[in-house]
């Protein structure tokens, strides 16, 4: 049943979904682009952000505190993870990096399950954004609209850091050629640590911001991870703008396909990824040779 209002509603859905994916994926892509490490624990870190925020919310009753807590906690986790584990893997083959992040993902998920059990936890949206908004042709949860706005602000902040600060320039240079950056006398070690921390924070922020939308369970990161890969591939590895574009495209693919046959939505996403990989492997906005 394809009605005009359904179509527009789904377009909008895709935007909301896509915004979130864009944020998470930008974290993953700058980590992969700079460090060359495909962080298979990224979905788990998204989940950790949600739980950290939940704990903060239960303690303080404030959504803002929850968001800050979730983001900062992941910043710490990211930095620790990079310093203690990932750093030793830069010279090891790619597969080893995949394996260790895969293992860490299991540890995070099961650790959370051990502490919090599998019963889902909810974080209610802030009072300002509860309820539904009427958009004329449809009603839409107010908070989801807010998420688009919140994520847009976060992406803007990330953009400003990457493109308007010295640190951001170094990070982007590192994405292009970390060896060169090293030869120029910049402490690449610290850059890597910062990049991992930023990427982790993006995932954590997304996790707590998303918590009122989907309830929190230890497994919530798993599906997100695979979708994030798809976004990164479509958008182009190492490209922040690519992640944003890819996220929006992915969100729309899921929503529009759902209009016709929801069961095929995720399959279409994978088909799109495979198509991009075969036709334009560097992604829509990526640079060639980053394979």
């Amino acid at each position: 049943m394809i009605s005009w209002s359904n179509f527009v509603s789904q377009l909008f859905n895709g935007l909301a979904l896509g915004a979130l994916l864009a944020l998470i994926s930008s974290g993953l892509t700058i980590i992969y682009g700079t460090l060359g490490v495909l962080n298979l624990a990224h979905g788990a870190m998204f989940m950790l952000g949600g739980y950290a925020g939940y704990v903060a919310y239960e303690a303080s009753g404030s959504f803002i505190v929850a968001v800050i807590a979730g983001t900062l906690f992941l910043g710490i986790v990211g930095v620790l993870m990079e310093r203690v584990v990932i750093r030793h893997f830069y010279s090891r083959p790619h597969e080893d990096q995949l394996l260790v992040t895969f293992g860490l993902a299991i540890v995070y998920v099961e650790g959370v399950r051990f502490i919090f059990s599998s019963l889902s936890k909810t974080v209610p949206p802030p009072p300002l954004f509860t309820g539904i908004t009427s958009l004329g042709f449809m009603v839409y949860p107010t908070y989801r609209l807010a998420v688009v706005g919140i994520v847009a602000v976060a992406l803007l902040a990330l953009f400003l850091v990457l493109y308007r600060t010295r640190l951001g320039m170094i990070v982007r240079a590192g994405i292009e050629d970390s060896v060169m950056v090293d030869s120029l006398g910049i402490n690449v070690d610290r850059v890597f640590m910062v990049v991992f921390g930023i990427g982790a924070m993006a995932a954590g922020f997304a996790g707590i911001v998303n918590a009122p939308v989907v309830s929190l369970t230890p497994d919530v990161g798993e599906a997100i991870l695979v979708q994030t890969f798809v976004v990164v591939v479509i958008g182009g590895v190492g490209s922040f703008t690519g992640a944003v574009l890819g996220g929006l495209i992915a969100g729309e693919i899921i929503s529009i396909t759902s209009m016709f046959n929801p069961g095929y939505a995720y399959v279409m996403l994978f088909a799109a990824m495979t198509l991009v990989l075969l036709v334009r492997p560097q992604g829509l906005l990526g640079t060639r040779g980053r394979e």
Partner: protein
Amino acid sequence: MMRTQRPGRVELLTAIGLVLVPLILPYLGSAPNTVNRILVWGLFGIGFDILFGYTGLLSFGQSALYGTGGFVAAYLLTRAGFPYVWLALIIGMVAAAVVGYLVGLIALRRTGIYFAMITVAIAEVFYFVEFNPLSEWTGGENGLPGVPTPSLYLGFTTIHFTSGWSLYPFLAACYFIGIVVALRIVRSPVGAIFRAIRENPLRAAAVGHNIHAYKLAAFVIAAAYAGLAGGLLGVLQAFMPPEAFTFDTSGQLVIQTAIGGRGTLFGPLLGAAVWLFLQDFLQATLGLGAAWKLVLGLVFVLLVVFLRHGIIGGFVDLYRFVKRRKAPVEPREAAPSPGVADEQAAHAVAAKTAHAQPARTLHHAASDYTGPILQATGLTKHYGGVIANADIDFTVNAGELRGIIGPNGAGKSTFFKMLTCEVPPTSGKIVFEGRDITGMSVTDVCQLGLTKSYQVNQLFNRLTVRENVVIAALAELRGKFKLDMLGSVASIPGLDEQVSSTLALVNLTRRRDTPVSELAYGEKRRLEVGLALASSPALLLLDEPLAGMSPVERGETVKLLKSIAQGRTMIIIDHDMDALFELAERVTVLQEGRVLVEGTPDEIKRNAKVQEAYLGGVHGVIDVDEALA
């Protein structure tokens, strides 16, 4: 590592091990079903290890093939009422291999992480398809229950393999056959090429192997093993589960192989044993309840961090460490230092190499052709807005030794890359021995008799010197693709001869069994040239063969180059003009992507335009000899 020691030893040990297991393990408290499962995972992993450990292709999508083989076999045995378990398993395996071929055609168009991602996507699609559109055949969420167990009709009696220890001999036999076949594959020329692809796919292609076809072969092999293992899973459980298709299954396979040790064939078996044992142990004995997965995850992370090559790798390293402390250190070739003694040594080396002649006939594109061996016309290469080469006309006659010089940025390396067809020209034509090779692949061109040695060493780093040359020689002797998986490297006629003579030519016979990583820089450069030589090229290009060498090394290399020039045509790029002018009969000078001038070394030395190009402007002609005196 190629194990060329007593053949059959590994197979014998495996057989003994498999026989001993049911006699020993029950006393250690092992459940027969766990052991059976370990065997199935182990078999699944053999194929995966060939793909990942030996060929270097990390696929997260093996579950698609495991499930395909399993469901085809299970469907035949349950819904279709097929009576022969053995035959159904084989059909399942073949089906998986066919599907693997089709999947490989898509997935292998990319490499590295992208390849891995495509495999993930394909695995997810297969899972979805199994669950949903094809649920009529696959039972959807429920899977296919009621898979029967096999029986062996021996004429006078029938042996029924049911479950537990009764099923073990059947699975052990399958595993044993799987190992024997896999061992043959990795010891065959195809196995050697797999390893080459893992080490340096660029060079493997450049020495004349059709690496895409070999990768596809590895993928199909892995698919066949996966399909058979999937069928056996159904038999083992009397039920074919849809979980066979999940990403978790692929992930578990990768984890187990990493734990056990990749590139060992037995790694997956050991990894499965550790993983499944820990699973049972943590849940049962320690009574951890839901926390078992957490502990397992921690153990896995620790294993990955501390045991780089898995458990087997850990043992091998330990063994080597112990052995090295006992054995005397192998004498390395002394680093050359200036002095008369070395002059004499260099002469001795030169005298030796002068006697070593190329033993095999060279490769020609067309053996009866009499014109110039190479003719490039209008060769141009643009990279976006940058013009690397512009409209180059270049002709070399057979038997010539041509030099190419030019200031930095002249486009010399790009020119070479176009000649060997590593990069396609933007426009222009290349004719090799009368045959238009424009737009061909680097592999085909090598097979025709045109190859190159690289400016930056492109060697197979974890292989020994001898093994490196074998890879190149195999392409020369067997053509660009031959699926002799069950043959052995040793039995290729002419291989030993070709390898020995090549090693002698580059004076590396004494170092034949040393891994490349342990060679001195000069030795590596010689091996680099050796790799190109092993293809018996009629036209050999050398990209800065003298780069980074000390004066003595240079002298040696120049003499080496002179000796190998006999009977073949060579084109050399270098910056060392003294050496080049000594070697070459004619020299071409490139500047800013164009041919500046061409002539004999003397003519070039005196040419005003060349001087200007290098010095940036002169007044009058410089008498070079006078200047240098």
